[in-house]
């Protein structure tokens, strides 16, 4: 039953269940407001008492409890009257709180889904380049200056290939004479953009050039190239899970919103024209 493994389906099933459940447990009085009657039962009082205790590290005295109950009733009366007057409408604070609660609900559902490794494997393959290790190159280089003549380049190359002493070759430079196995982005941050492209395509072990850097012309001997690869899921399981969760909860939040928004006909001016 592959279809049941679809996270989106899980989401809608759980979501439906939760919304139904909220519908059931919502007190009747919230729907059909009985303004004549306000009931505080013993559970409500116990909750007030517990909250007080959490804050003050002791139970409330009788007088304090009475004050808490009175304040609670007062709040209920004022809230109901305020609603009748429509004071809750257009209040940015209340609107924000309500929309946040809806978001929390969605988030809670999204994080409750546990993907199996197959889901993660699919996700990993779909986003392989995100997890791929960079191409790594180790090399030696000789810098010949900004614009060496062709003869100079040829001579230097011949000298290097003949394995003669080269400590006098090239100018003095702060650039490292050799780089250990380094990611291409590191190489580019030292030698400038484009340099690593020049050296990933040459034969290993043989002096080659000229290769252009941000500074000028180089001769390069690549010692080793390690191609890019995507690690197996087991090695990067946590990172993949984290990304899967992030993307999934964003997708679910959007899907949830789209479903809800379908219940509305939305009329708004078209702003998609050219920017003013």
């Amino acid at each position: 039953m592959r279809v049941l493994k679809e996270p989106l389906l899980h989401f809608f099933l759980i979501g439906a269940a939760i919304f139904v459940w909220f519908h059931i447990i919502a007190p009747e009085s919230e729907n059909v407001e009985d303004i004549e009657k306000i009931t505080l039962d013993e559970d409500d009082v116990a909750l007030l008492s517990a909250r007080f205790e959490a804050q003050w590290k002791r139970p409330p005295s009788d007088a304090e409890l009475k004050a808490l109950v009175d304040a609670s009733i007062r709040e209920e009366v004022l809230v109901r009257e305020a609603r009748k007057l429509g004071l809750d409408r257009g209040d940015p604070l209340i609107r924000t709180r309500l929309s946040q609660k809806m978001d929390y609900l969605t988030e809670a559902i999204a994080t409750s889904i546990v993907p199996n490794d197959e889901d993660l494997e699919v996700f990993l393959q779909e986003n392989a380049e995100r997890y791929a290790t960079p191409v790594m190159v180790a090399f030696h280089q000789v810098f010949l200056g900004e614009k060496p003549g062709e003869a100079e380049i040829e001579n230097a190359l011949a000298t290097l290939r003949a394995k003669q002493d080269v400590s006098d070759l090239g100018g003095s430079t702060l650039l490292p004479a050799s780089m250990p196995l380094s990611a291409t982005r590191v190489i580019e941050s030292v030698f400038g953009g484009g340099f690593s492209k020049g050296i990933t395509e040459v034969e290993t072990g043989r002096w080659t050039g000229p290769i252009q850097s941000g500074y000028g012309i180089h001769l390069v001997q690549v010692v080793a190239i390690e191609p890019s690869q995507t690690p197996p899921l087991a090695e990067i399981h946590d990172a993949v899970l984290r990304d899967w969760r992030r993307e999934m909860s964003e997708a679910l939040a959007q899907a949830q919103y789209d479903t809800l928004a379908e219940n509305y006909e939305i009329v708004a001016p078209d702003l998609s024209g050219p920017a003013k």
Partner: protein
Amino acid sequence: MFRKSACIISLVLVPAVVGADAVPSEDAAEGLFSDQPYSPYAQRTFPERPLWGDTHLHTGLSLDAGAFGNTLLPDEAWRFAKGEQVISSTGQPVRLSRPLDWMVLTDHTDLMGFAPDLQAGKPGVLSDPKGLEWYEGYKAGGEEAGKAAFDIITNFSQMTLPEILLESYSPGADAFAFTWESIVLAAERHNDPGTFTAFIGFEWTSVPKGFNLHRNVMLRDGPIRALQMVPPVTQPPYGDTDPKALYAWLEEYQEKTGGRAVAFAHNGNLSNGWMFPTEDTYHGGKVDEDYVADRAKWEPHYEVTQIKGDGEAHPFLSPDDEFADYENWDVGNLDITELKTDDMLAGEYAREALKRGLMLEEKFGVNPYKFGMGGATDSHTSLATAEEDNFFGKSVSVEPSASRIKHPFIANDLGEIPGDLLVASGYTAVWATENTRAAIFDAFKRRETYATTGPRIGLRFFGGWDFSEADVETRFLANVGYTKGVPMGSDLRPREGEAAPSFLIAALRDPVGANLDRVQVIKGWLDSEGALQEKVYDVAWSDNREVDQNGKVPAVGNTVDVETASWTNTIGTAELVTVWSDPDFDPNARAFYYVRAIEIPTPRWILYDKLRYGIELPEDAVLTHQERAYSSPIWYTPAE
């Protein structure tokens, strides 16, 4: 010596490799530079390339950053520093030109975690009338939000924050502990030894009555140690603004966890003279044996350049230095509740502090201001941007927009810092052998760091007693430098012979940046009369310029086209290498030397704004500047 031995070894080895062509790997590993062993990497005892980073960045977890609308949290800040594209809090896609190698994330500890709760309108925030007022301002957005944010910062710096909020977001409160935990764990998630180092850190935001005494703290450690403590704050009764309280915390941290930590100050320019005291401290203490010992122990580094002004030198203190007038902020203290007077400047700038350190060392035997140099962004956007053409501003309110340069950083009855004065600066380069917490932290401790105002200028600086002109010719500059001398941040070795100290200096322009104009050595010393002196020497420069009658190298010129915000590398040079010996050396005088490498003029960030938004700039706005790098000093102490 070095060169000769290399040749001998190569003569011996060359016959051995003839005929080995069929086995490229062996051939390759043999290497042409036969001063190396079989494995070319085996003897890498010195750092090969500078590791670039930012020591100072805020996310939405910081009180002020969050209040200004920063919704990006540590994960986004780390991803951005590693070179990924992110969407800024104002909805703009942004990416660094090149990734950083490491970063310290330094959210403010005071009211840590309050800002996200404010943004979300959590009941704990709204139950306080001030909290509610700020929330409503924040939700209203635009100018109202800016006002609310500023009110929060004012209440913070004047210590009038509501008590209930303070209690809920200070050490001892759950929200505080969990925020710290989330910071620590985020750093751990992004720490990738060898590739990218994510330091656990924080900013201890001491700003009594608006005098900036801020310190950043970086830990060498991971979560196991970092989570044994929560970081210290400054607001009473939970903390104290006296740096002594921070030193006590650091002492306790090291003792309790076995870990290691350092602190470093920044923006002395906004302290109104209190950053580098010589007699009295702001908190009523004396600069005595204890003070100098503590400061020397805990603060081996100083953040010399960042968004809120460059703090190397000031023209009032260094009238003979034509480059001292660079991105200085000298109106007042941080919130301009007190204006600046000239007598305060000496307690504010790095060069003067280095000089004062010599004087205090003469007095106490310990130099409290013996620090290495670093640059940082201090961005409050979660985005560590320091490049002029990619500058995302100080806070979310001044992320790129057509109107941002019109927003003053601060303006009140006393004075103003207009928006165009924000500085797109800076980064810290570290000479470390590995990209790990341990290696980089240890480099900070030995001060092997340098600051730049944004460009990734390469800078080597070695001091010794027998560097010679021939050393300039070597392809293995670092070998020579480390062998014959000491690197930036160190003390010169004991004097040999009668000569003056000599220095091997090399600067390389940013691979994608502007050419170099010149390299200078800045010397400070304590003369025989007990007076502090300084002198700037031009030691290498481009374009074969002649020194003029005042002993100065004339200006390099300016290729910036203000209409297109572009320049050309037709002046200046890519690399400057020299050996310089001090012509005015006095063996009996304490001294320090540091290097300043200066680029040719390039556009300031506001020119890119002008070009991209088609806006008018203020008439007196500075359009071009010469970016620079500051090395850590090398110190000379006379023999007893």
